[in-house]
């Protein structure tokens, strides 16, 4: 009788887990998962959701990207901030964004925040925390405004104000002393900026600028680099070399392009023009 061992076709294969545990007990150093320090926040206000994020991406103690974008697009009125391993947050939000678009086309309805949340949490749980994505998901749909946090192991929380990342304690301190129900748009934005700034100035894993995104029932407004409290001081001198620093004897300039004319091709009969929008 053949005892067919069924290996699942999706998710991770955990057959090396025993081997790794044994090696670790013998003193072999396990590779450490790199976390990209971050401050991300989300806040419910009168008309919808405000999401906020800093813009620093770190690789250990080094700043890898001074102005990266951590507020990812899921659908027109749903956005997701990502903390943790940058590659994981980018790929998983892109994947779910794509699936949400297909789902919306299939159902003929505008996508809902709980749908994106369920897709994200089911995939993260399937991978047992190996996908290091800690997300703040927020948006407005037909059922109203919703704000969720999703942890790498797949647990979710539904709250009126949330923070994630290494700067989350600093940002949460600001929220706990400043949030109240039914804030106006300007008040909510100010609170989010204050919370992200607390993370930027008190946490070494966060820095540079503040990104914000305001989502209401009518429209979603992405405010990239909304506040820039860390602008580099203008360089006092120009550091180019003057012409003549290197001596030359002769100069000859040859035009590589003699003449150029661009004519758009006519659309073939019965075919569609390429969509270049």
């Amino acid at each position, binding site marked *: 009788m053949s005892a067919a061992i069924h290996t699942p076709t999706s998710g991770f294969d955990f057959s090396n887990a025993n081997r790794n545990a044994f090696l670790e007990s013998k003193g072999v150093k396990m590779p450490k998962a790199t976390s990209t320090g971050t401050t991300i926040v989300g806040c419910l206000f009168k008309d919808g959701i405000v999401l906020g994020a800093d813009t620093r991406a770190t690789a250990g103690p080094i700043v890898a990207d001074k102005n990266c974008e951590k507020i990812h697009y899921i659908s027109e009125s749903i956005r997701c901030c990502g903390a943790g391993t940058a590659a994981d947050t980018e790929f998983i939000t892109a994947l779910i964004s794509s699936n949400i678009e297909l789902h919306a086309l299939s159902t003929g309805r505008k996508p809902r925040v*709980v749908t994106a*949340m*369920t897709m994200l*949490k089911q995939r993260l749980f399937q991978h047992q925390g190996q996908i290091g994505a800690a997300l703040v998901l927020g948006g407005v749909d037909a*059922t109203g405004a919703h704000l*969720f946090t999703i942890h790498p192991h797949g*647990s*979710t*929380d*539904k*709250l*009126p*104000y949330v923070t994630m990342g290494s700067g989350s*304690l*600093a940002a*949460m*301190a*600001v929220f*706990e*002393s400043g*949030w109240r*129900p039914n804030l106006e748009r300007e008040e909510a934005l100010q609170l989010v900026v*204050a919370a992200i700034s*607390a993370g930027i*100035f*008190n946490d070494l894993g966060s820095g540079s600028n503040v990104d914000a995104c305001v989502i209401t029932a009518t429209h979603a407004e992405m405010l990239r680099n909304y506040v820039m409290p860390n602008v580099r001081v203008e360089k006092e001198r120009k550091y180019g070399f003057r012409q003549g620093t290197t001596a030359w004897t002769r100069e000859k300039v040859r035009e590589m392009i003699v003449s150029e004319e661009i004519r758009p091709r006519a659309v073939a009969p019965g075919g569609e023009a390429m969509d270049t929008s």
Partner: protein
Amino acid sequence: MDHFPTNWGRPKYDGFDTNATYPFHDHGHNQSAAFAGATQHTQQPIVTGTSVLAIKYKDGIMMAADNLASYGSLARFKGVQRLHPIGDYTVVGASGDMSDFQYLQHVLDGLVISEEINAQDGHTLGPAEIHEYLSQVMYSRRSKMNPLWNSLLVGGVKDGQRFLAYVDLLGVTYFASTLATGYGAYIAQPLLRKAVEGRENTLTEPEARGILEEALRVLFYRDARSINQYQIATITANGVDISGSLKLETAWGFAEGIRGYGSQTQ
């Protein structure tokens, strides 16, 4: 005589290997002292206090701490005073192991008495001297691998001069106009810095009190080893005043309308 070259130039483990019988330096760390005459050092804190906060304001220093001494995750002792006055000019606030703090209180009280009796020169110990003494004691204990497991804030006013400093189990010292130990460093410091930095000379007493109370409230919300009962110490040119136990007002209705943790609507 140590016959093993691998031990030369390295710290001696006299505590459990007096005659240097083992050739390898790394014998496994902190082996439990299982025989007579054994001494055990570097410990773990048992009964602990959480954050202490302190700020400089117009008239002097204000320091705050809650009244809890935890036993791991048990809220064991709820009437504990973690702010201790020393002499006439200083208050020392402690987080970390409470037994080590009680020992330090004993040592510092004895110090003030002996300075006064032995020297009899009219000089009294102010906050700067207390802090310097503590930092010497703490660093020397850490160098003997037998620390006093505390993070201390020393604040006071003497001769019109405000003093506020931090010293901990490693002997690290730090001076600033806002200080916080424990979780306060992550949660309260951002709030204290925003509210105080630049305004140390104009902040009034009720404003300073409000700032510390707000920070303590946020700590009660977010630190799982805190309670809402606290004390505030105010030190000015008029001396030290440690308030009685006060209670924090809190609001827990922020998620009243929410059901479940995901897609649940009922």
